[in-house]
C-alpha cells in the first residue's frame, strides 16, 4: 500500500525535479533541429507537383474526346448520388459517365472539390464504388474484373479522378494535360 503511495507521489512530483530545470542550451539545439526539420517538411510541399484550378467545363471538353467515352452515358446529380452516395451540391462540379451496357464495368468520375482535403474526403466513396463494381462482375465477367486492376483512383490537387476501363490511362493523360502545371 505504502509502495503504491510512494509510486503515486513519484509520478505526481516527476515534472518538478529542480535538477532537470538547470540551465542548459541543449534544449535549444534540439528545438532548432526540430524547427529545421519542420522547415524541410514545409519546403517539400512547395516543390511537389502542383495542379491548376481549371473550370470543369474545360476538363470535360478535353476528357470527353477520350477513347470510348463518346459512347458512354453521361450521368446527372441523381446518378452521382445513386452510385457514389455523393451530393453534387457539395462539390464544385463533376463529370460522371458510364457504359451504356450493364455488361460492362467502364466508368469515369472526375469531381472538382473545394480543395485537396475535400477531394481526399471523396476517396472512400470511390473506393466503395470500385468494390461494388468488382462484386457485380465477379464470377461472370472475367474481362470486366480485369479492368479493376487497371482502375485509377487518384486525388490530383482539388480533383478526384476515378476511372475503370482499359482506356483509363488515356483518360487520365487527357485530364492531367489540363490540370497539371
Amino acid at each position: 500500500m505504502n509502495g503504491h503511495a510512494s509510486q503515486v507521489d513519484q509520478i505526481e512530483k516527476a515534472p518538478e525535479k529542480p535538477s532537470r530545470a538547470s540551465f542548459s542550451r541543449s534544449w535549444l539545439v534540439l528545438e532548432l533541429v526540430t524547427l529545421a526539420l519542420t522547415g524541410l517538411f514545409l519546403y517539400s510541399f512547395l516543390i511537389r507537383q502542383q495542379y491548376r484550378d481549371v473550370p470543369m467545363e474545360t476538363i470535360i471538353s478535353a476528357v470527353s474526346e477520350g477513347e470510348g467515352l463518346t459512347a458512354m452515358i453521361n450521368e446527372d446529380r441523381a446518378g452521382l448520388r445513386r452510385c457514389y452516395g455523393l451530393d453534387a451540391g457539395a462539390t464544385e462540379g463533376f463529370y460522371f459517365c458510364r457504359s451504356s451496357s450493364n455488361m460492362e464495368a467502364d466508368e469515369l468520375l472526375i469531381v472538382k472539390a473545394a480543395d485537396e482535403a475535400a477531394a481526399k474526403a471523396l476517396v472512400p466513396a470511390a473506393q466503395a464504388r470500385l468494390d461494388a463494381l468488382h462484386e457485380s462482375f465477379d464470377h461472370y465477367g472475367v474481362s470486366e474484373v480485369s479492368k479493376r486492376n487497371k482502375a485509377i483512383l487518384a486525388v490530383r490537387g482539388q480533383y478526384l479522378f476515378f476511372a475503370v476501363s482499359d482506356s483509363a490511362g488515356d483518360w487520365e493523360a487527357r485530364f492531367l494535360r489540363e490540370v497539371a502545371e
Partner: protein
Amino acid sequence: MSFSTLVFVYIFLPLFLILYTLVKPGRRILLFLFSLVFYAWGEPVYVILLLLLTAFNYFSALDLAGLASAGRSTRGALILNVAGNLTVLAFFKYVPWIVGLLNTGFGLGIPVPELSLPVGLSFIVFRAMGYIFDVRAGKIKPEYDFLTFALFLAMFPTLSMGPIDRYGDVCRALRRPRPTFRKMTAGASLFLKGLAKKVLLADTIVLLYQTMKASEGNATVLMTWLGMLAFSFQLYFDFSGYSDMARGLGGMLGIPVSVNFDYPYTAVSITDFWRRWHISLSAWFRDYVYIPLGGSRVAPARHILNLLIVWMLTGIWHGASFSFILWGLYYGILLIAEKYLIGERAAVFPAVLRRLVTFVIVLVGWTFFQGGSLPQTLAEIKALFGFAAAGFTDSASLYALRTNLAPLIACAVFATPVPDKLFTRLEKESPALASLILFLIFVLSTAFMVYNTFQPFLYAQF
C-alpha cells in the same frame, strides 16, 4: 478520421476502448498510437508534422524554463517559439491566400501553392502556444515526460477540433488517466448526444441551407432567412455536437475535456453570446492577447483598439479571407457598441426580446462566416433585410418552409437547455428509460450515417 463515421463508431472506438480497458500499464502509449492512426486516416503525411510540432514545443518549453531558472531573459526563446508555430500555421492557412492577393494586386505570376490544411492545425498550434505562454508566465512547470505532452497536443478526442484546453487543467489526468465505470457510462451518454446533434440535427438541417445556396442570387427574402436560419443551426449543432463527443470520449478515457458551448443561442447580448460560443477560443484570446494588450484597464480609445485587434485576430484565426476579417470586426464593433453605447440600458427590455435580437444579430453575422465572396455576402444581407431581387416569397420558398418546419422547430428546441434538463431528470428518475432512449438515438444515428451523404465537420476546416 471523423467521429461521425461508421468506421470510427463501429471499429476504431470499440477496439480502442477494449484495449484501453485491458492494458492498464500501457494505456497512455495505446492512446498515443491510436491518436496517430486517427490523424493519419485521411492524410498520413501530416503525422510527421504533428510529431515535429510536438517535439518543437516540448523542447521549446524546456529551453524557456531553463533560461527562466537561470535568471536570463526568455523573450528571445518566446519569439522563436511563436514565430515557429505561426510560420507553420501561416504556411498552410494563409500563404495561398496572400500569394493570390499579391498576384491580383500587383499583377504578379507567383505560383499559388495548392496546400490542404492539416486537420485541426489551428487548434494544435493554439494549444501549444497557450502552454508556452503559461510556462513563461510561471503558471505551470514545463512537462519533462514527452508522452504526457504529446497526449496533450495530439490525443484523438481533441485533436481535430479542440477545445483549446489549458495544460494546467489536464496534466494530472494525462499523467495518470483514471477511467471508471461511472465515467465511462456518463462519457458514452454524452458522446451519443453529441453524435445525435451532428448526425440527426446538423446534417439534416443542412439540406435547407443547400436549397438556399442552390438558388444563389435568386433567393427570396423568405428563402434567405430560412437558409441562414438553417446555417446557424447547422453550425451550432455541428460544432457543439463535436465538442460533446470530445467531452464524452475524454470522460470515457478518464481525461477531462473542457466545456466549449453553453447554449449560445439563448444569450441575451453579444457579450453573453461570446461567453457561450467556442468558449475555449474566446478564453485563449482574452488571456493571451486581450489582457496582455491592457484589456479594459486602459483609456477608452486604447480599449476600443484592443477589442478591434482581438476580434480581427479571431476572424483571421477562422480563415484566410476578407469575409472572416469582416466577421471578426463585426463582432468587435458590436461589443464596443454594447460596452460604450448600450451598457445596462438593454436590461429594461424583456429577456425574450433581448435573446431574439441577439440571435438575429448573430444570424446576420453568419453570412460573413460562410466563406463566400464579399458581393455574395452583401447580397444575402440585403435579402435578409427585405431587398431581394426575387421578391419576398415564392412557391419554392413556401415549399421549403413547409417541408422543413419540423426540423427547424426541433433545432430551435434543442438549442435551449430544456431537453438536456429534462433528460438529466429522466436519468435520475428512470435510468432504464433514459438508457433505452439513448439506445434508440444510437440506432437512429447509425441509420442516418448509413443512408445520408457524409458531411464533414465544419470547424475541421479551421
